[in-house]
């Protein structure tokens, strides 16, 4: 059994690490749930019964808060309605489905719709609605509220929608080239045509209100991030500096505060690992001539000097902490915002873009990032365990079986960390 203090500290460290891991997992699970749901068949939105065409149409466009359609929209709707009505009439006299061309002739689209059986129309009616929305991208949702009064067939068909959707089966064949919507009804399988991102995702359009708000948002962030240098800005900066100086005056406060000490200790830790890395490089290098050898020697001497400087600085910090009682108070600490991350001189507060070209690349990036985090944690834990456990091995007197067990356990904890434990083969999801 380990002594109490040691146990407490090590337990705290390991539990912290486990909590952090669990938190990450929780967040990932949340995102996974959302993404999985998106890629399944979209359920018809819970809309009030008034909506004449529930189904794929309404899922694609978020309805903005109630607003009256403009006269132009009403007019277009009317045209659409008339076209569809005509199509119904024409179809009655035709036996062939419309052609494959992409001409935005609503007629050819809608020709398909009423002629087919109840299983296919959900797609077709969806197509009619969507086609209209395609040709008029700036219009938000108004097409979806196709007034039902002139289209008894469509309404019937959309009722059929609901029952078919309940089966939720995927269409058997993904259409080649999603823009090419036209398919002979006979070619369409009996399965209902529910909305999936895979097949119809390309047709989605963001609603107008959202787009406006989003572009305004990025414009405002850009304004906020820009460092304007006008007279007024200079005056403000001067006023602020003066204020800070006045606040500070009269108090011989240490130039160091706890947050700065912490930041500097972090920098020195980074320094130590970089120095050590460089030392390793120099020691494994194979000089071919005396000049390289001399270079190597000078580098090592230089590293030694820098290490000495860092150590000296650290001792200064330690003294400052002791003297000025710079450590945080027992009540606990509010974690401060990270100062190193989040940009340097030109901080851009809205996110920048990260371009990736394939899923494989994205997965590599994400897993590398996690791996770096994991290694960081492993190194930290290794140091902590070393500091706590190695002294135990050396100071424990009884050399019986318990001590041997301790040695074995310490060895497994400290030396057998499987570096490859987390390398994962990329599964194809």
């Amino acid at each position, binding site marked *: 059994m*380990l002594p109490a203090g040691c*146990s407490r500290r090590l337990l705290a460290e390991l539990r912290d690490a*486990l*909590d*952090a891991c669990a938190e990450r*997992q929780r967040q*990932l699970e949340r995102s996974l749930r*959302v993404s999985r749901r998106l890629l399944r068949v979209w359920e018809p*939105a*819970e809309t009030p019964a008034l909506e004449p065409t529930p189904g794929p149409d309404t*899922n694609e466009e*978020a309805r*903005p808060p109630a607003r009256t359609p403009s006269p132009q929209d009403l007019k277009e709707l009317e045209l659409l309605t008339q076209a569809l009505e005509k199509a119904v009439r024409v179809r009655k006299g035709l036996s062939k489905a419309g052609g494959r061309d992409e001409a935005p002739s609503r007629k050819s689209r809608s020709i398909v719709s009423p002629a087919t059986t109840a299983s296919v129309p959900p797609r077709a009616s969806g197509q009619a609605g969507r086609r209209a929305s395609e040709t008029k*991208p700036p219009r938000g949702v108004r097409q979806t509220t196709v007034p039902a009064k002139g289209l008894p067939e469509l309404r019937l068909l959309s009722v059929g929608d609901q029952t078919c959707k309940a089966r939720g089966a995927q269409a058997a064949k993904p259409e080649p080239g999603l823009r090419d919507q036209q398919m002979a009804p006979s070619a369409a399988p009996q399965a209902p045509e529910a909305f999936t991102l*895979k097949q119809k*995702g390309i047709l*989605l*359009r963001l*609603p107008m209100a959202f787009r406006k708000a989003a572009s305004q948002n990025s414009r*405002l*962030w850009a304004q*906020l991030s820009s460092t304007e240098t006008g007279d007024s800005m200079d005056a403000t900066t001067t*006023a602020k500096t003066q204020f*800070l100086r006045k606040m500070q005056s009269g108090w011989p406060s240490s130039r160091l505060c*706890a947050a*700065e000490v912490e930041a500097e200790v972090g920098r020195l830790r980074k320094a130590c690992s970089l120095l050590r890395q460089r030392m390793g490089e120099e020691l494994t290098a194979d000089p071919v001539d005396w*000049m390289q050898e001399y270079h190597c020697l000078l580098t*090592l001497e230089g590293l030694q000097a820098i290490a000495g400087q860092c*150590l000296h600085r*650290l001792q200064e910090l*330690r003294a400052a902490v002791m003297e000025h009682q710079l450590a945080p108070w*027992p009540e606990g*600490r509010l*974690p*401060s*915002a*990270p100062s190193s991350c989040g940009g340097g001189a030109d901080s851009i*507060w809205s*996110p*920048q*873009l990260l*371009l990736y070209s*394939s899923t494989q*690349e*994205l997965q590599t990036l*994400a*897993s590398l*990032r996690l*791996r*770096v*985090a994991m290694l960081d944690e492993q190194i930290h*834990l290794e140091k902590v365990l070393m*500091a706590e456990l190695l002294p135990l091995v050396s100071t424990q007197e009884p050399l019986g079986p318990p001590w041997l*067990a301790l*040695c074995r356990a310490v*060895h497994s904890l*400290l*030396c057998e*960390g499987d570096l490859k434990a987390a390398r994962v083969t990329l*599964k194809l999801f």
Partner: protein
Amino acid sequence: MNFHAPALWRLLFHVLSPRPADDAAALPAPEAQARLVKSALRSQGYPRPALVQLPEDGSQGSRELLLALSWLLARGPLLERLLAQIRVRLGDEMPVCECEVLASPGPPAPRVEADGCVDIRHLQWLMGKLRFGWRNLITSQQEHCALLGKVHSYTRGCHSDRSLGHLSVTEAELLRDPEGGRQLLRRLESENARLEAALEWRRRELVFWQWMDTVLDACPPEASQPTFLPRIPERGAGELELVARELQALQEELQAVVETRRAAWEARVGGWGPGWKATQRASEEAVRQELTALQRAWERGGGLAQPHGPHRLVRSEAGTLGGPGLRATEVIKALRSQEACLEAALRQLQGQCRQELARLVGALPGFIWILPPGC
């Protein structure tokens, strides 16, 4: 005049602590909030001792609290930072570094503080659990990336913003779920209102600072010396000690290596003439430059060669990679070199442990240290 103190304490608390999780139950009582505010300001170096002496019940001190708030505002981009923290995220974001994650710990879970001793096997078990957890994390992350990739490629061409090209999960969600979409829109609109208010503040800030100047002048001069409460060393001090120990060890290793090599070198070139002095100086200069560059990697404000912060993912099939933005290949390169460094560091530490253990066991008569295979 002092009615505002409680509100100011609350405001300072929310400003100084990162956004708490969505449970209001986690908020501490007002007195505790005040104590935490004092502690946080102190640790950031707040210069005025009057703050420390304020009563925590909110009965007085509104002027001092106002000064504290202004101090925070003056020191850095406080408004922008706060706004960025609660920003509505429209894209699928992925951080390219781990700094943020490490710096902001989640809410501390309530812990049963068992002050007893544990068996080392329990530690081994916990360690195994941790490794398993990481493996799961990586697998889940892989799946998530695959799903993201699908959503991005299935919606290519949909976005009104050409530089983005496709929808993000958030955007597709708002189309799938209109109610959620309305909420998102509301949040976006209120953020826009906040941003406009921030810009308005910027335009008129000068007046505020002129006023604060007068507030500061109106303060009575501080007479007494500040009284500091005795402190109990926290984990922060531990970190310092760890680093000190590492640096010490490093310096000793370097010293040993350098001594032998320098001696060997001197022995070799002892007989060389002054002719090679020039080359010697050239080497010295080259090394000096290299080491200065190395130092810049950890100095304050230097060497931000690593990309930082969250980035919005944009899928862009090869060939259309024209626009602005970080390329995944670059990030991967940087991460790989980081990975290599860290692996080397870990191996080195493990080797150190192995040596130390072997030494400790080997020093005892009658024991043979047999390493398990693969070690």
